[in-house]
């Protein structure tokens, strides 16, 4: 039986693991050098590499399901310390990630062939996409913190490159930079945690983490785990580091689907799941609080946004918050498995939502909700798949989101009832915002300008969406329902799992979903204010607060970015006016002293010591000539002195 968050040291040696990130990396290398010559073929290079990686990953499943682990390692900094070997390892947890990344990656790369068809940097897009997958797979396969950190930073780089892919747009260029720097703030937390762990023997090896609580005192583990969580929060866009993800929507839609919904942003969840043995009750408390806060705040913002992709972005933040809450629930074995289960189902329906949104944008060149509507007739496939994914996300029985969300709700109920009610509220909000989005895009009268020439997307885009649709519908039932005996939880190492459905929870969550959908129908679609009159001013104020994203961006601009830039400016001025001026001042002092000395020679020495004047004068002239400020004369003196000295002493 594998342990959910610890790699055993007895594992099968499996060099084929190198192929998993190796194939996309090879695709990247080919595309970066020969991309332009390959032209449209370059897309297929990327797709083939990803499909190959997916094949290898799925090929590992019999071994993994049998409870075995696979590993492969090589020397890196071993000259300094044998600890610094790097390696790959696969257990249930990383295998699940591998399967998600490679499978969804292949589908999205295929979709991109259609979506990016007319782009002048077509092959470059697929090069970056391949590099992203290679980095993400390295992150997942890493059996130690150092290699994970390398992959972690590299996915950040690819995210940067792909957000800024249309870099002629200033907003895209800005968004990429914001994403990189914001996540890097979190990354320093992870780096500090790694530095702390490097002082502990074996501390950097994931397989040894569960043994660390014998060595490390609780306070140290709290600190380390909170630092790790800071890194996770940056990557997974948790409050207060969530601000980069909505802006990241400047990237092409497939990028949003793959990186900013299904995989990279889930890396934070994976990291916490992987390092869960380090977390103490205190740090799990922080995790839970941050997760809940993110889940609810982002959900309410999503209710108010008018840009299709931004609604989805806040929805992603909110769902990641739900996974973080699940991790924070803290039942060591169950927690990470539940979060991972929701990660898997979310990857399917959210990737589908983004691809469908991309299909809409592709067809209408419009992503403002107020100018969309009635697209269902022109785009039946897209509309149907979007609806399916929305139902799945709302947690409607028996679609995938139902199973993963209910598992978390049930767990919350066992931990504390208040948590359950909060999460149930979050579920209602989820249903409300996603149906507001669906209804306003696809139902109702066609918006004036686009419906006439809107058209269904080509087969190459619809087919991957359809596959994801099937997954979004059934994967919850296949992977985590009593009917199939929870195979996913099993592979993640959770053994005790009560069978059968919990009927009250089922009823309540279905009610929550229905009320959310109803709210979306009344308030979101028909724009009717459901609040009683006395509450309306308050409602307006709350709405404005959420619509302005709680002013977090403004707060950061005012209190962090501006002071930072001002500090940089001030230090630069200090450098110029104080430090450099001191240097110049010392130089000038030297000249002044020289001049004073000369004047002294002329006025005092000359007049007083008339008799010795001639000698003094000669000497003074000589000294003065030395102080000409002409450097090669100084040097001449040095060189002559060296030569004379050496000759003189040689005798």
């Amino acid at each position, binding site marked *: 039986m594998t342990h959910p968050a610890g790699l055993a040291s007895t594992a099968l040696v499996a060099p084929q693991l190198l192929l998993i990130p190796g194939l996309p990396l090879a695709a990247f290398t080919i595309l970066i050098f020969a991309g332009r010559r390959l032209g449209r073929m370059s897309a297929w290079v990327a797709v083939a590499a990803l499909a190959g990686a997916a094949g290898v990953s799925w090929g590992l499943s019999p071994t993994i399901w049998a409870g075995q682990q696979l590993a492969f390692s090589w020397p890196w900094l071993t000259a300094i310390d044998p600890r610094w070997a790097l390696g790959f390892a696969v257990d249930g947890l990383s295998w699940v990630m591998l399967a998600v990344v490679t499978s969804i990656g292949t589908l999205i790369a295929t979709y991109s062939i259609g979506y990016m068809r007319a782009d002048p940097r077509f092959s470059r897009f697929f090069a970056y996409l391949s590099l992203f997958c290679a980095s993400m797979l390295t992150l997942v396969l890493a059996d130690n913190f150092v290699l994970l950190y390398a992959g972690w930073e590299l996915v950040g780089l690819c995210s940067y490159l792909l957000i800024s892919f249309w870099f002629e747009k200033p907003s895209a260029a800005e968004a990429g930079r914001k994403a990189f720097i914001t996540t890097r703030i979190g990354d320093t937390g992870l780096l500090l945690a790694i530095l702390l762990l490097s002082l502990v023997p074996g501390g950097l090896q994931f397989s040894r983490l569960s043994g660390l609580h014998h060595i490390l005192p609780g306070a140290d583990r709290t600190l380390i785990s909170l630092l790790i969580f800071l890194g996770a929060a940056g990557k997974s866009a948790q409050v207060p580091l969530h601000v980069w993800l909505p802006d990241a929507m400047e990237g092409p839609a497939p990028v949003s689907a793959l990186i900013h919904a299904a995989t990279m942003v889930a890396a934070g969840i994976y990291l916490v799941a992987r390092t869960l043995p380090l977390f103490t009750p205190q740090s799990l408390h922080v995790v839970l609080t941050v997760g809940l806060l993110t889940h609810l705040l982002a959900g309410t913002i999503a209710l108010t946004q008018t840009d299709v992709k931004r609604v989805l972005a806040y929805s992603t933040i909110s769902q990641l918050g739900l996974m973080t809450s699940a991790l924070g629930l803290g039942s060591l074995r169950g927690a990470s498995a539940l979060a991972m289960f929701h990660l898997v189902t979310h990857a399917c329906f959210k990737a589908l939502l983004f691809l469908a949104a991309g299909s809409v944008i592709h067809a209408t060149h419009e992503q403002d909700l107020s100018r969309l509507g009635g697209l269902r007739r022109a785009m039946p496939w897209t509309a149907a798949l979007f609806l399916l994914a929305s139902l799945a996300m709302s947690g409607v029985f028996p679609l995938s989101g139902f199973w993963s969300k209910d598992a978390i709700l049930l767990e919350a109920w066992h931990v504390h009832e208040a948590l359950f009610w909060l999460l149930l509220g979050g579920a209602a909000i989820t249903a409300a915002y996603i149906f507001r989005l669906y209804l306003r895009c696809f139902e109702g009268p066609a918006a004036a300008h686009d419906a006439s020439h809107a058209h269904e997307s080509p087969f190459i885009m619809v087919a991957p969406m359809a596959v994801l649709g099937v997954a979004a519908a059934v994967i919850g039932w296949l992977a985590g329902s009593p009917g199939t005996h929870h195979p996913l939880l099993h592979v993640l190492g959770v053994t005790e799992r009560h069978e059968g459905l919990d009927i009250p929870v089922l009823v309540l969550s279905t009610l929550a979903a229905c009320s959310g959908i109803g709210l979306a129908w009344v308030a979101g679609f028909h724009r009717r204010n459901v609040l009683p009159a006395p509450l309306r001013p308050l409602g307006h104020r709350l709405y404005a607060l959420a619509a302005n994203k709680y002013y977090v961006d403004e707060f950061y601009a005012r209190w962090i970015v501006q002071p930072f830039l001002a500090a940089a400016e001030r230090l630069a001025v200090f450098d110029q006016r104080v430090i450099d001026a001191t240097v110049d001042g010392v130089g000038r002092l030297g000249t002044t002293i020289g001049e004073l000395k000369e004047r002294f020679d002329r006025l005092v020495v000359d007049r007083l010591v008339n008799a010795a004047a001639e000698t003094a004068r000669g000497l003074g002239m000589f000294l003065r000539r030395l102080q000409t400020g002409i450097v090669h004369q100084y040097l001449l003196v040095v060189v002559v002195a060296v030569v004379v000295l050496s000759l003189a*002493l040689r005798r």
Partner: protein
Amino acid sequence: MLSLLLACPLAGMLLVLASPRTAVRAIRAIAVSATGAAFVVSLKLLFAFRAAEPGLQFVERVPWIQPLNVFYFLGVDGISLPMVLLTTLLSFLACLASFSISERHKEYFALYLLLEAGMLGTFLALDLFLFYVVWEIVLVPMYFLIGIWGGGRREYSAFKFFVYTLAGSLAMLLAILALYARARTFDMVELSQMSRTFELGFQQLLFLGFFLGFAVKVPIFPFHTWLPDAHVDAPTPASVLLAGVLLKMGGYGFFRIAYPIAPDAAQWFGWGMAVLGMVNIVYGAFVAMAQTDFKRLVAYSSVSHMGFVLLGLASLTPAGLNGAMFQMVSHGLITGGMFLLVGVLYDRTHTRDLAAFGGLGARVPVYAGFLTFFSLASLGLPGLSGFVAEFLSLVGGFGVWRWQTVVSVTGIIVAAAYMLKVVRQVLLGPLNERWKALADMSPRELASLAPLLILVLALGVYPLWLLAIQDGALTRLIIHVTGR
């Protein structure tokens, strides 16, 4: 073998001096072959070097000024060999970049080759007297390269560079004389062997003297302000060597002289060195953030990056020292590449004002690729050499100087901010109409940058081969200094 290495640039210099002034092509050919030959010899050195032996190799020791006990004493070990290779490589590549020099070729290349000989001498010398002589020789050609072929306030900058460094060297000279008065020898090996007999007070004075000499070169805050001025006004190849090699002479001095000869003082000053490293990293990064001139920004980023050398050194741990050495090589490659890239742009646009560019990514994709690559290397992206160096320095520093290292880590965030600012301002955004006819990199420019790119990548992915060279000598140094 080592004398042969020194002879390559010197012979080249003599040949250049003997050529007629107008034979520009011949002069260039001589310079390229001389620097190329030096590079080949240094490669042979690398292959003949036995990494398993931590001691000095290829030693040459001939009496020079016998009454003073001065020797012509050369040798390399794992500390100097990487520096020698860095010098010959960058000299060769910057020589290719020197083709854009348009006046007084003969003087230029003669001085250039003299500079290379001086730099190599600094890394090879094992006699303090000889070391001091070559150390000072380096100043002369660099002074003229900046003062004659530079731009802007070149006389001011060249003079400032010269006087500043000379002032630092005077402190070093005092330390050398004090050592001689005490031990009657200039032999670094002997001196380090008898270092344990020097009492702490004497060692502290020695260390301070050497420190001032090296601190100006590294440069360590607050002795750094000559650097941005010198860089801004220096011609591109001089900038490359200044950042790539001359700064390393300061760092190397700590490894070769200050630490071995004043080991107890080195430990005593460890706290201060760590604080200075932290200040360099954070202060340099902040000031870089505020720059609007491309070259000044890169110059301040050097201040920041050299802080990692100090931090690693101060830790006196295997990881820290390896990181510090690795950073010297890595920073030489990365910043050398950065200055070459600034030069490529400046040759075409005659401006270094970051705000004057914009959107070049669409116009010059190859250049954009190179600039993005070196920016990422500079901000410490894993997989590239800078990450290995900074990571090791931080790991080493963290175990010993906890809060200095924690503060230093914030420098990494700022590094991302200023490097991405460069990328954003130069490459991204809408194309500035002024540059719509800008030409992409020429084959010669590619040839001077591609080797650096490959090395930065190779060292980042597989750092082991450089570590294997330097580790033996560094372990010996740690044992010598700490006595453990």
